């Protein structure tokens, strides 16, 4: 799919999807690479309006809107097998005021540690359907090498259901820089 091209999600009657992010543990000296996965829940004006509109690793943001979006915990080194971080989204349970979900991957403390995705080995983000089908993926080490955060894709509400569109917009401002554009003041 081309960037920003929308495609209706074929959910096969089950609207649960998963965001998976993985990377390899750092082999050389220095601070580890700590990738973070987040989902922003945006209203029609393109902004978040409540604390529950951000699902991320931070306490208080891991389970939002009654479990419609669940972050399964912060991995800080990329030491797991398979996906290191995971967010489950149940599109049927997304509140009506939310018209768009934005999937973001970022590197924790990237600027202070002088890190970017290009330094991270084997970094990827992918979207899986409930039955394990891969809907989309992105090789972050290659496609976002110069950046510290990326808006990977958006999932938007349509009359016919939910549509997926790759965005792949990189940022050098980390997660704080991305979420501040959508109404969150990073703390």
């Amino acid at each position, binding site marked *: 799919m081309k960037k920003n091209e929308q495609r209706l999600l074929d959910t096969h009657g089950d609207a649960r999807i998963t965001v998976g992010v993985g990377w390899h543990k750092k*082999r050389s*000296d220095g601070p580890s690479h700590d990738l973070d996965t987040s989902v922003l829940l945006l209203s029609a004006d393109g902004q978040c309006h409540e604390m529950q509109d951000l699902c991320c690793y931070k306490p208080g943001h891991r389970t939002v809107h009654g479990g419609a979006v669940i972050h399964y915990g912060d991995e800080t080194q990329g030491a797991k097998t398979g996906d290191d971080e995971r967010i489950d989204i149940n599109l049927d349970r997304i509140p009506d005021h939310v018209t768009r979900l934005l999937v973001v991957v970022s590197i924790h403390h990237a600027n202070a540690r002088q890190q970017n995705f*290009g330094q991270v080995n084997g970094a990827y983000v992918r979207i899986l359907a409930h039955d394990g089908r891969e809907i989309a993926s992105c090789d972050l080490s290659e496609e976002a*090498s*110069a950046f510290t955060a990326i808006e990977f894709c958006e999932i938007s509400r349509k009359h016919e259901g939910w549509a997926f569109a790759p965005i792949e917009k990189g940022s050098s401002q980390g997660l704080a820089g991305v979420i501040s554009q959508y109404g969150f003041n990073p703390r």
Partner: protein
Amino acid sequence: MEPDDIEIGRPLQVGERIQPVAGDIRIMIDSDQDHEVILIARDEERTEIVDAGPDAPYSVERYDHGCEVTIRPSRMIGDLRYVLGAYSSNGTPNILATISDPRVHLALPRSDSAAVSIYEFYEKQDWRIKADGGRYAGGLQAMLSS
């Protein structure tokens, strides 16, 4: 040789990936202190030192304060990743590693770490180069066992 004496091209960021022009890749390595240059091949399970030679994946021509390395992707195995590194017994010196085509360079400052990975070469449709810059306090042994 001073860096100002040669055209070193655009500086690379650590982590940046580039696609070399097809064919052999020539890299000038300039330094202010003695060090050894090495090529390592690795996959998920093993790491091996690659022998240098005119028909090998790489060769090294040494001169005062540096060397010219020729990387031959046509002699490399696509399933492996190759790391061009440098090591010394007492920390790594200032290193300026200039790729001839496209003309770009990676400047690595002196470090107490006894080994450094300069560039990584790998195949992803085409051969690509990653500016690596990884440091290994444990020297060559640490780089080999990582």
